[in-house]
């Protein structure tokens, strides 16, 4: 197959980097010089390039275009992502988790107040991992969600109950005897 034309390459890069379907307006914004016919021709080029024995295809979706992997690879990708590197929680996520463990039930605002940073995406990660859950709603303005740890949290850290978390004055001792090896 011949090289893609410059406009087709620009579209290819944009389709690859975009999180959602690329709408006609956005395609026009990529190269204001190009005509409608140029754009359609370039899209056809991209489509043809991927139809030619690739695992990816150009799909018309939601009034726009999107590059997607073909149906038959779905399972394999899932397998590969399962084999992805073990998921280490970031230091920020761990601190948030620790805060929730000690202060539960606790609102997002309380956590952000103490940590001084926004924790929206971290809470999402912890929720997705099943380490925390929404345990109720606080009284007061907007009745914000209250977060707490889950049984999966206890299980992961081999705790029988939350009372087994060290008290803050025991922490210094708990931290002392362990020598941490760099990963």
């Amino acid at each position: 197959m011949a090289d893609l034309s410059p406009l087709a390459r620009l579209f290819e890069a944009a389709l690859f980097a975009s999180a959602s379907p690329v709408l006609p307006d956005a395609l026009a914004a990529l190269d204001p010089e190009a005509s409608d016919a140029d754009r359609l021709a370039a899209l056809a080029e991209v489509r043809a390039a991927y139809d030619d024995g690739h695992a990816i295809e150009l799909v018309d979706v939601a009034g726009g275009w999107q590059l997607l992997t073909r149906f038959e690879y779905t399972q394999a990708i899932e397998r590969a992502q399962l084999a992805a590197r073990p998921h280490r929680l970031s230091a920020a996520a761990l601190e948030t988790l620790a805060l929730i463990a000690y202060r539960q039930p606790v609102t997002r605002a309380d956590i952000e107040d103490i940590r001084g940073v926004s924790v929206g995406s971290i809470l999402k990660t912890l929720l997705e991992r099943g380490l925390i859950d929404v345990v109720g709603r606080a009284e007061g303005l907007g009745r914000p969600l209250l977060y707490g740890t889950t049984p999966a949290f206890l299980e992961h850290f081999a705790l029988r109950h939350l009372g087994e978390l060290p008290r803050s004055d025991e922490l210094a001792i708990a931290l002392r005897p362990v020598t941490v090896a760099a990963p």
Partner: protein
Amino acid sequence: MAEPQTFVVELAQFSGPLDLLLTLLRDEQIDISDIPVARVAEQFVARIHTLGLDEAADFLEMAARLLRIKAQMLLPRRDGDENWEDPRAELVRRLLEYQQMREVVDVLERLGEARRNRLARPPDAGRATAAGLPATPPGPLAVSWIDLLGAVDRLLRAGRRPAFHAIVARALDVPGALAILRATLVERARVRWDDLVPAEAEPWQVLSVLFAVLELARLAECAIEQGAPFAPVEILRGRVPPRSALVADSEVALGDSTAHPEHFSGEPADGRFEPIGATV
């Protein structure tokens, strides 16, 4: 009574005192291995002043260090003294180390810029395949107990920073202020607020007097007057207090506030507060 302001120095131009010092040496075309400390120290101080950095601790520390080296250089030494060590050696070591790090920064900057100009697949798009792939199950969670304890420990350390400060209220001395105010009103029919509160009074003293005045006003033992906006507040003698109230400070009835002064949260009976600043 105002808290000292915390410095937040925006260092758009210099990332620290070593950076500034290096720039200065470069501008003056000075050889790092033979720094004329007296001249450089003066120029450093002058620059941090111009840049408005002369209250930033890191920059002040460097200024002090330069001045100390300057002083050490002035100490007399015998010719051929083998034990003499150039007081600038430590500074030279730090400058070279810093300069080396800047070189690495240049490399990282170049690499980072090259990478920034290339786009990866966005995280959410990977999940949206034609087959409607469900949210990807991430890899197994690799977080140990010690990781969690370490996080708790960091939180506790962070807790000691001022962002986490606990406010311990200074106990108010309302009974004392009441006694003084009543005694003053026996002597004088009219007393100015300024006379009751010393100029260098602490907040707890101001508040004590304020509550005492409001309490007496509630009991109609005094009236509060202000001739015009921002004019001095005057307290006028009201009805004579019962004899018992003048006897013992400790018996003054202000209930909870005296029993637990550290938890004082009493409000004047009418439920309104004058803003302290406006009153004083």
